[in-house]
């Protein structure tokens, strides 16, 4: 198989031409999101250029401590994003969400690198950062849904929750139906993606590997392994996020603290 064809300056300029389609359409439809669209595009380009240089340096150095340190930075950014997008306040959630994302993702990445990829150096930058990023990115999305839905539902249906407490339910028993529902909503996108994978979508990792010169059958094996890793880290991190945050979100009387919401 041939190596990936590098994209020239001309190719990147053609990308800009392609970008004109959504920009003009959004402008024509007066959706009012042109500014955001352009800012996001500029941010994406700048971030990716910077990260491109940074990763090139990181991969060349391939130092276990530095790789682990970068993995921690990725987790911190994910924690910020999960809390911010769930409509919750940082001070109550930063520690429990960090712990859940850290434990779940580190466990899955180390398991993947040790027993699936069977690496001699489990903190290898190519695996730690790339696999870690994919696993973390997916658990981030699921945690935004899971954690956000859980607290929003408890707040919206507080009367029902309190009613259960009045019937003799413990705090855990009363919130369990809410936790189960949020857990399911958070997992559904991953399960749906898995069910249609290869037919509806050719996943990014597989596409990347094929463009990078891998045989499709090798790319498929990796894709199966990564999807299972994503599922495992998603399930683990949501369960831990809900469990770890409960302590900070309820009063001793079992009543939800309103101060947790932004």
């Amino acid at each position, binding site marked *: 198989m041939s190596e990936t064809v590098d994209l020239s300056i001309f190719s990147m300029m053609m990308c800009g031409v392609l970008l004109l389609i959504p920009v003009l359409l959004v402008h024509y439809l007066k959706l009012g999101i042109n500014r955001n669209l352009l800012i996001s595009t500029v941010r994406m380009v700048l971030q990716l250029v910077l990260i491109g240089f940074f990763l090139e340096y990181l991969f060349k150095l391939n130092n276990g401590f530095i790789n682990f340190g970068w993995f921690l930075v990725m987790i911190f950014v994910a924690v910020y994003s999960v809390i911010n997008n769930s409509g919750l306040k940082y001070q109550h959630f930063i520690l429990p969400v960090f712990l859940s994302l850290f434990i779940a993702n580190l466990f899955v990445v180390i398991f993947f690198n040790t027993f699936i990829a069977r690496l001699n150096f489990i903190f290898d930058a190519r695996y730690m950062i790339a696999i870690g990023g994919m696993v973390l990115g997916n658990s981030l999305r699921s945690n935004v849904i899971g954690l956000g839905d859980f607290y929003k539902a408890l707040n919206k249906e507080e009367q029902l929750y309190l*009613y259960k407490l009045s*019937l*003799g339910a*413990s705090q855990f028993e009363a919130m369990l139906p809410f936790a189960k529902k949020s857990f399911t909503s958070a997992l559904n996108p991953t399960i749906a993606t898995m069910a249609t994978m290869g037919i509806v979508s050719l996943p990014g990792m597989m596409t990347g590997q094929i463009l990078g010169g891998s045989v499709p059958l090798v790319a498929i094996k990796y894709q199966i392994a990564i999807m299972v890793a994503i599922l495992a880290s998603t399930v683990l991190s949501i369960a831990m996020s809900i469990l770890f945050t409960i302590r900070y979100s309820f*009063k001793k009387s079992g009543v939800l603290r309103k101060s947790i919401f932004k």
Partner: protein
Amino acid sequence: MELFRIENITKQFSEKFVLQNFSFVVLPGDKINISGYSGIGKTTIFRLLLGFERPDAGKIIFDGEDLTDENVWVVRRKVAYVSQDLNIGKGRVSDFFQETLHYKANQHLRTDAKNRITEYLSLFNLQTDILTRQIEELSGGEKQRIAIINALILDRSIFFLDEITSALDPALKEKIMNFFLENKNFTVLYISHDIYSSKNTKIKTLKLC
């Protein structure tokens, strides 16, 4: 022995005082009608006694002990509360009862629960086939009776009843309220705008104004 002693309770929401220096005592066997216009704080009394709200000032004593966030669980396991809110959950009616009986604190009630549910269904003019129906499909009156039965199977003797018959016809309202008001073993605090022709002449009135 007093069950509840409420001493100089004050509760406000935002800028509005709902209760101000409010006091009363509940003795075993009391039947107390809490009355007053809408929004005056009748339901807030139940919420305070169940620990869903904390008073801004004053104290609540239950069974001789100050009510705190830690020990309010004891009250919740001695009181049966029927809320005016008809959102009692989703799913089959039988599963709704099962969930209540499944709670660790209620497990001892499981043995003869089925017979008791059947008895109460018949007492409150409901057919047993309602057990297989979905809560979402029930009428307001049916939901109210299901919530009342759910409170009764807890086998408790203190009841907080918040507008529990608002969706029922007059005859059924009388029947259900008299069931509670004429039972000497029950302590009942209730909110209702209706007047019942109960044989119990010892009903106290707690008027909020």
